[in-house]
């Protein structure tokens, strides 16, 4: 059919069509790839400019259905921004050199291969998965990267080469940034956005890994510490919390305007009450880290330790503790939670708190009305939040945190 050594275009493109039919939501990305014939690539590889290098020999000896799997695999590297993430990891952890980049390629392959095949796509021969390395499935490249070293197990993978699109290291056979037919950064983003949009529009068709990717593709998840910090800080510093104008002392600027009595802005440090859900569903480690965080933040906004109080709460809220003795707060409890008791107890304190911070997993009833202070909710994630089930009341759906609270997901 084709001359020896020439690329069997029909086979290659039939495979792409197969891939696009099996994964319709990836078709924009598949078609956006620009194919380049290259005899120096071992199999198929991508660069960060969305060029796909194809070895004619590899196309010849691989069945169409496996080629389709390779297409999806390669485009996944680009969609998941493995080159950018590799560069970031290399910078953060100081990993560099060909060996480290090979490890990144392997880790990236593990992230892709555990959920990309099946349902009409055959796993290509020699595809690296986490199982080969004895690692759990469903993790991210960055996590896999911590868990293995190059060694006897990875010996067979040293030929593995998905190009700079997978690990960020430029290869000699790549056309580079100046070469023809590459996609600009904006074009790459546009394609990735289109694919993410297709997945979020019809989430039923895409596996979980892809749905997670689509949700996060353009909104990098922010670390909860910063978010919780920002929420507490803005609650503590908003007008009305701990500060007011007073005529009790003259303003600093009174000297400049003789004859006028200017009020001065006085600030007393805000009182923060941390309500801690000690029900059985929240682990001690989670509580400990969140409590430390809140204390550190309230100190940063000018709170003194004696103004930060902690209130362990399950179905009842027995007593308020001062955080002077943070080490000694008995986080007793267990069983069910009723945060309404916690709120009532926190607001009963005199002087009343300016801010109530609630640390909970959300499996609780919430107060019906908005309390008379700012509320920040630190929410521990629960995988089965939607499917929570109550023995006595199978139809029971736990309430979500109310709209008047600022909610930060922790974890």
């Amino acid at each position, binding site marked *: 059919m084709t001359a020896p050594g020439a690329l069997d*275009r*029909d*086979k290659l*493109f*039939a*495979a*792409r*069509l*197969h891939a696009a*039919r*099996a994964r319709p939501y990836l078709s*924009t990305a*598949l*078609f*956006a*790839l*620009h*194919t380049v014939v290259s005899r120096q690539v071992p199999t198929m590889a991508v660069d960060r400019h969305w060029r796909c290098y194809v070895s004619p020999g590899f196309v010849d000896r691989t*069945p*169409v*259905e496996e080629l*389709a799997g390779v297409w999806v695999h390669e485009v996944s590297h680009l969609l998941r921004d493995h080159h950018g993430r590799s560069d970031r990891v290399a910078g953060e952890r100081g990993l560099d050199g060909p060996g480290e980049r090979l490890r990144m390629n392997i880790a990236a392959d593990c992230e892709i291969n555990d959920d990309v095949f099946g*349902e*009409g*796509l*055959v796993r290509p021969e020699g595809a690296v998965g986490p199982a080969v390395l004895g690692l759990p499935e469903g993790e991210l490249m960055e996590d896999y990267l911590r868990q293995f070293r190059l060694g006897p197990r990875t010996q067979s993978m040293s030929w593995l080469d998905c190009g700079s699109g997978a690990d960020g290291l430029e290869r000699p056979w790549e056309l580079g940034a100046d070469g023809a037919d590459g996609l*600009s*950064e*904006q*074009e790459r*983003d*546009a*394609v990735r*956005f*289109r694919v993410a949009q297709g997945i979020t529009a019809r989430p039923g068709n895409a596996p979980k890994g892809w749905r997670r990717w689509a949700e996060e593709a*353009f*909104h990098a*998840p*922010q670390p909860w510490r*910063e*978010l919780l*910090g*920002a*929420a507490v*800080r*803005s609650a503590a*510093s*908003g*007008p009305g919390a701990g500060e007011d104008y007073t005529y009790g002392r003259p303003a600093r*600027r009174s000297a*400049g*305007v*003789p*004859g*006028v009595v*200017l009020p001065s802005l006085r600030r007393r440090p805000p009182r923060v009450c941390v309500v801690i859900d000690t029900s059985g569903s929240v682990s001690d480690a989670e509580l400990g880290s969140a409590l430390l965080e809140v204390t550190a933040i309230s100190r*940063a*906004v000018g709170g003194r330790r004696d103004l930060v109080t902690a209130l362990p709460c399950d179905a009842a809220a027995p007593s308020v503790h001062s955080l002077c003795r943070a080490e000694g707060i008995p986080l007793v409890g267990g069983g069910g939670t009723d945060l309404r008791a916690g709120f009532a107890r926190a607001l009963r304190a005199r002087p009343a708190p300016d801010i109530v911070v609630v640390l909970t997993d959300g499996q609780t009833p919430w107060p019906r009305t908005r309390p008379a202070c700012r509320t920040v909710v630190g929410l521990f994630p629960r995988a089965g939040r939607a499917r929570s089930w109550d023995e006595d009341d199978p139809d029971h759906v736990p309430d979500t945190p109310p709209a008047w609270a*600022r*909610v930060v997901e922790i974890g």
Partner: protein
Amino acid sequence: MPEHATNLSAPTRLGVAEALLDLLRDSTTEPRTDTQLEALTLAVSADLPVLLWGEPGIGKTAALTQLATSLDLPLTTVIASVHEPSDFSGLPVVGDDPAEQGIPMAPPDWAVRLVRAGRGLLFLDELSTAPPAVQAALLRVVLERRIGALQLPPGVRIVAAANPPSSAADGWELSPPLANRFVHLQWAHDHDVVVRGLGGTWPHATLPRLAPEKLSEAVDFARRGVCGLLAARPGLVHRLPGGEARRGGAWPSPRSWEMALRLTAFATAAGSSRDVLSLLVRGTVGDGPGLELLAALDRMDLPDPELLLADPAHADLPQRGDLRQAVLDAVVAAVRNRPERSRWDAAWALLVRAVETGAPDLVVVPATTLAALRREDWDVPASIERLAGTVGLSRRADRSLARATRTARDTARAGR
């Protein structure tokens, strides 16, 4: 002797130090395209308040200095976090008869000098570390351009800078209303630029110039793009940021869409690249809506299906596969809307041309759809022979998909 030495060497030592400093300062510049600086320049020319987000010490101030030089504007820097609200809203000054004459709110000296000069670049640094009351006072400066009783003249442009919440340990976040009034630009340092700069060669960006002959065309383009998108997607017009992560950033509202429209027109008139426009638009209405606008503008750049049908022999199809398929789909859709024999034939000719100039798998779906549009009395054009390979390709993919599905099922049944 020691006394003598100190007396002599004190000036000389400093003199040597001065010489060393001179040597260190001695650097050249080279031209370089700088996307973020270009975006900043366009936003400032468009008279929109810009907010630069960036870690401390990565050259935001240096960029501002370069911008001020190139726009020939004097630069006034005000560190927002060390001021009180009254520095921006004005200090009350009591006159002779306050009940009769009122109490004027006196502006600070830098504002007076700015107004007197009539033009300048006002740089409000450290915005996110300013307390909320100061931010509220700044709102008026940025929006109404008023400082106390003074009105900033139109020749003054405003740029603010803030550290991202992750690096500003004691920072406050921006409230959504304040955030919505800015063009948010993420400022990052370019590794190569820094290394070359420390080596003695700093980049010299050539800044965009608006082409006078393109102005009305640019306005037309921007209006068509933005209005076309918003007509089709009403949900994009206004969307308050929901999650905690996106507070204090860009979000879509009629106000920010108007800014996006203006920026699109400016970028078009300046002939800027899509990367520059992308930074601007995403920094104005947010990532999602911004990318949708860019996609809409890309679609406007695609050839008109009617023109292609009118002259299939000289059709110029896009090289990129996904765009090419979008064009072919649009052509088939145009034929479906007004099915005529001649148009149907022209569409086949286009598909043949597509197969001959690019990847064949893109043509399969449009060809299948087009074949289904056939009326009984329409003869199949002879050129369709050349699409025979595509049919084979489609069958081959079908067979392969069936095999793969079977294999998957067998593996599942065998329990791996």
